[in-house]
């Protein structure tokens, strides 16, 4: 019996080997490269000097002034905080829009449901860059919004609403980009929900609001948590919407990292920032796992 047991473990390891190779090559490998780069010295012509240094990490918090003294520099911390707040706001907004949308979809007939879910996924068929450019046309000077304001006489030709290159523009771009990632998991958990529970709650004197607060919201919590993670994480590192819609005026984490690799040619610093972002994301995921553990009990139950 014992031999069989050992064989089983062996088989399990062997059968998972291709998966481990894929994960190793495509996920752990690049990460290790990043981690190594973050510990090197920068080379002004791009790439790195293969010499151990913590300067990449040091630069996140400290700067060297004209007199070669190391002094505290909060600029990057501010960028991190700004990115964090913006990602939080985008997640919250997505939730605000995504939850009712998912609820609406889940209450349709099977045929309509499929069509609506298909529509939700359609944006993924086009490149994110192009879709974000579309928002420039919508939000920009003389764009769709301004010209319709003009048309109704709410705005004269000379003035502008100045929608572009603001935090709001970035927020709109982020919410637009990642909303489907909020809708789909919430929809999935609502779809699984036993509709008889809603009947039971109504039978026990719940009005509409109580129905949502006491039954639908707690039961779709796994989807809400999952969706929030899926939106929050890419928002934290996003650079397309911030660059195009925010005009790069106020740097965000994603743009900063991208900038270090492309123009500033400070790979170690970019890599260090990326590792820092990774650490942030892992913290969020741990927090999420804690939340999920509470909900798993009844999420698995049917």
């Amino acid at each position, binding site marked *: 019996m014992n031999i069989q047991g050992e064989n089983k473990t062996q088989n399990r390891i062997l059968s998972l080997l291709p998966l481990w190779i894929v994960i190793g090559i495509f996920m752990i490998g690049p990460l290790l490269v990043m981690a190594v780069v973050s510990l090197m010295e920068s080379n002004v012509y791009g790439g790195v000097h293969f010499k151990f240094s913590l300067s990449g990490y040091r630069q996140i918090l400290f700067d060297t002034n004209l007199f070669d003294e190391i002094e505290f520099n909060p600029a990057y911390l501010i960028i991190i905080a700004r990115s964090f707040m913006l990602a939080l706001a985008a997640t919250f907004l997505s939730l605000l829009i995504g939850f009712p949308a998912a609820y609406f979809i889940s209450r349709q007939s099977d045929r309509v449901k499929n069509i609506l879910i298909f529509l939700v996924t359609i944006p993924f068929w086009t490149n994110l860059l192009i879709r974000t450019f579309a928002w420039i046309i919508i939000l920009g000077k003389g764009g769709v919004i301004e010209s319709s304001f003009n048309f109704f006489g709410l705005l004269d030709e000379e003035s502008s609403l100045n929608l572009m290159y603001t935090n709001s523009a970035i927020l709109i771009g982020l919410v637009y980009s990642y909303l489907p990632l909020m809708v789909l998991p919430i929809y999935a958990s609502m779809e699984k929900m036993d509709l*008889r529970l809603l009947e039971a709650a109504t039978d026990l004197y719940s009005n509409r609001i109580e129905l949502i607060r006491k039954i639908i919201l707690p039961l779709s919590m796994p989807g809400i948590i999952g969706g929030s993670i899926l939106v929050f994480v890419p928002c934290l590192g996003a650079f397309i919407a911030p660059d195009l819609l925010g005009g790069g005026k106020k740097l965000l984490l994603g743009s900063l990292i991208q900038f270090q690799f492309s123009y500033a040619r400070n790979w170690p610093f970019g890599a260090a920032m990326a590792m820092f972002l990774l650490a942030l994301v892992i913290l969020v995921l741990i927090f999420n796992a804690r939340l999920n553990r509470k909900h798993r*009990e009844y999420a698995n139950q049917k």
Partner: protein
Amino acid sequence: MMEKKVNAIDVRNVTKIYTSGNTQTKALKSANLTIYDNEFFTLLGPSGCGKTTLLRLIAGFEDITEGSINLFNQEIVNLPPNKRPVNTVFQQYSLFPHLNVYENVAFGLRRLKKDASLVESRTFEVLELVQMKEYANRKPNQLSGGQQQRVALARALAPEPKVLLLDEPLSALDLKLRQAMRFELKTLQRETGITFVFVTHDQEEALTMSDRIAVINEGEIQQIGEPEQIYESPSNKFVANFIGEANLLSGVCKTPGENGVCELDTGHELNLFVPPHIKQNDKVTIFIRPERIKIEKSSKDKSQLSISEFTYLGNAATIQLKSNNQLINVNLPIEDLKVFKKDDYVDIHFPKESAQVID
């Protein structure tokens, strides 16, 4: 002294039509019935007969197509389910999985904005009633089927509904538990004094628990009456067949009237009440329960009936008698087991009032 009966539920000409695409299904056809206060009333019928539809109409989960439903003389058809003072015990219990037993039971009371102290005392009171007090902190998925059933019952009883609706609540339990719960439900109903409307397809459940039964088939109410009435004098072939075992024997009316005579195709003549719409030489169907038939030994030249099947049941036996084209089921009492065997020729007798001409 006769108590004056108070109408708890009046169902008047209720029709329910489901429309999906171009097809319309009539789930209920002009149903009429009155359920009295403090009654254990059962809606009995095969699956798809409309009994659950009627229950859901009373609870308010479905919109009525036609007719009216009154609850203690108050029209409730236009009220949403959360405004109706009735509660439901669901077939799959439908306990809230994210709430513990206590919160499940307190749910209705909290929605009714009862005082915190009242919520607590009432919740523990009903949990005590169904013997689930020590499980108050468990989640539903940590309970067995029988325990979930009790919690579902407690949850529906907690807000003190005027009528409790039970949708096949015992069907998910195993046999032993089901039998125990029957008794408990009946006791609970007597103790609480709440009107129970119980839906089931199990005729044994209906007969053992109910004060009155409505037998429903294909959206129409076939018969309403006390269990004994329904069992002993079913109003039609469907009821006769659905409740218990029945022999439906074909024959011809010889003499119509109150002291009529009918002749079975087996050649037996019976004295029985023949309803006025049946005339001489009309073909009739005669209903008789297997346990009402007594048999005695006969011989081939005297009787055409022989025992074609003999099924031993432990505490009794059922036998099947065969004549040229008819089969008659008879329950044989235990003391006669040794007397008869397969292929014996027998004669049959039964009391006049136990046979009935049936539509």
